[in-house]
């Protein structure tokens, strides 16, 4: 099956009309992956045997005509637990870890008849913006194999962009769905914090982490989000908010919508050509009847350091569980129990993870807590307040998803601070919990540019509405990546 030509709605119709079976769909997905993944390295693990069994069961039971996900293959980022299928978070620490339960999102997809085909490569423990920190080798950008796919959900974005799969799950703590979506010319949404249960998602920063969806078409992500959303008794941060059918309710009418564009998103630190692409994207919205006004979010310029202190602090606590005792990597050649902890962690984690856990440990340590952690948590409040104020008057905040297009592999990996600046435009939505998406808006020198669409908390539908309106105006999904480069 050629995923460049078919949306989930179209695949659903083929399945319902018995023009194709779920088994055939799964088999052709593996053919896609076998044909292209040597070039992009998007997958860490494939579970063909199990997926074919699941497909056969769906075929025997018959496609659920009322459920778009029935019989649809999907791929899962490797920090989301899958029963019996290795889940590594792209770390040596979990190289051989085989979960004994499914994440709620995986359980929900399977209940709806979707078929998970494999686990996607990423930055180690979702810490990174280039998918270069993976223990299993870096991922390549299908538009130019010499370039990074972004991160941390780089495998998810690259696999969708390369046409290996129709939709993939990612996670987004500071932009890890939207930044790779922008770099790979696909749609990616981080829904509202609390919209989706995080049960079974390997924790990085619990006040920021959210599961997201990447797909070529807007409605495809809407279908997946409808399936995986909802309150969960296993995750107290999941919100008791009704889940609409995001596909049925989608309404691309932009007449009278008010769009705010922060001047901080269109100035210093953002590539000039990107600003031009975004300006013409915003003109499309004006043509559709929306109004576009420049506003200011002054505290957004502090978002990157604020994020790194908060996310690293939470990570330093969350990742203490990796001690080499109950699961995960255990170092050999140890003298005592303390040695097990220290050597297992030192040998099991990569440099970027260590750097962040150290930063977090420091920010939470006695004497520094007020100066770093508390200060950052206060600035987070200021960012939340200024965003909330904008949404009192406007329906959307829009701007670029990233300050540059995809950079060359190896270019920034040795300079953490420059790498961190990649997330400057995506972090604010994580700070406030707002739903936010990146949608392809054009190209610069053969590399895709993403438009970011942010709405008020729990207005995930609004994000889909604006994204669909833009997709219908631009039809970016018709473009196919070149899959060329040195690598």
């Amino acid at each position, binding site marked *: 099956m050629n995923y460049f030509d078919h949306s989930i709605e179209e695949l659903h119709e083929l399945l319902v009309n018995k023009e194709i079976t779920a088994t055939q769909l799964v088999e052709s997905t593996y053919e896609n992956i076998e044909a292209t993944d040597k070039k992009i390295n998007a997958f860490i693990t494939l579970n063909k045997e199990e997926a074919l069994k699941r497909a056969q069961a769906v075929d025997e039971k018959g496609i659920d005509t009322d459920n778009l996900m029935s019989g649809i293959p999907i791929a899962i980022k490797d920090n989301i637990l899958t029963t019996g299928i290795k889940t590594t978070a792209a770390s040596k620490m979990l190289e*051989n*870890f085989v979960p*004994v*339960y499914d994440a709620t999102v995986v359980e929900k997809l399977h209940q709806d008849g979707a078929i998970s085909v494999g686990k996607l490569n990423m930055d180690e423990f979702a810490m990174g913006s280039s998918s270069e920190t993976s223990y299993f080798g870096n991922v390549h950008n299908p538009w130019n194999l010499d370039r990074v796919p972004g991160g941390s959900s780089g495998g998810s974005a690259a696999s969708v962009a390369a046409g290996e799969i129709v939709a993939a799950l990612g996670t987004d703590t500071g932009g890890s769905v939207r930044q790779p979506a922008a770099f790979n010319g696909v749609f990616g949404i981080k829904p509202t914090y*609390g919209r989706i249960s995080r049960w079974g998602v390997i924790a990085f920063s*619990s*006040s920021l982490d959210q599961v997201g969806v990447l797909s070529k078409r807007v409605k495809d992500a809407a279908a997946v989000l409808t399936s995986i959303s909802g309150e969960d*008794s296993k995750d*107290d*941060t999941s*919100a008791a*908010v009704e889940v609409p059918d995001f596909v049925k309710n989608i309404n691309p009418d932009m007449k009278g919508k008010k769009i705010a564009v922060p001047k901080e998103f269109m100035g210093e630190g953002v590539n000039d050509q990107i600003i031009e692409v975004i300006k013409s994207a915003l003109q499309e919205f004006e043509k559709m009847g929306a109004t576009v006004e420049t506003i200011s979010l002054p505290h957004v310029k*502090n978002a*990157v*350091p*604020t994020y*790194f*202190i908060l996310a690293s602090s939470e990570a*330093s606590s969350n990742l203490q569980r990796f001690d*080499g*005792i*109950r*699961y*995960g990597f*255990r170092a050999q*050649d*140890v*003298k*005592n*129990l303390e*040695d*097990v*902890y*220290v*050597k297992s*962690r*030192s040998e099991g*984690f990569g440099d970027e993870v*260590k*750097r962040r*856990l*150290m*930063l977090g*440990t*420091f*920010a939470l340590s006695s004497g520094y807590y007020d100066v*770093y952690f508390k*200060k*950052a*948590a*206060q*600035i*987070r*409040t*200021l960012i939340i307040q200024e965003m909330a104020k904008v949404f009192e008057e406007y329906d959307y905040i829009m701007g670029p998803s990233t300050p540059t297009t995809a950079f060359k592999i190896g270019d920034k990996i040795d300079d*953490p*601070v420059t790498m*961190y600046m990649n997330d400057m435009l995506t972090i604010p939505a994580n700070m*406030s*919990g707002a739903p936010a998406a990146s949608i392809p808006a054009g190209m610069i020198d053969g590399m895709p540019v993403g438009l970011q669409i942010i709405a008020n908390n729990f207005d995930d539908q609004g994000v889909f509405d604006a994204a669909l309106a833009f997709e219908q105006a631009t039809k970016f999904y018709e473009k196919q990546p070149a899959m060329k480069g040195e690598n």
Partner: protein
Amino acid sequence: MIDKEQIRHIATLAKFEFSDEEFDGFATKFQETLDMGDKLQDIDTTGVEPTTNLATRTTVFREDTPETDQTREQLLSNVPESDGRLIKVPSILDTEGDN
């Protein structure tokens, strides 16, 4: 600005060890990351409440009904070293490699 001794101390708290050659490169980059955080110190946050979570609910109750979850075998299936039904760990005291 913190010195290398302090960075060594943080490594101990975070349960990491570095060889001498690894440490220098690591410390420099760590220092740069931290400098970024120092930029926040000039921002006036007097009277601003910190935000440490975004949860929309506080305490959630459910019926206390028994449920079947993982078996002991499943729960022990990822243990690096076990002895029957027990998780095996080295002694707390130094054993000079004689485990």
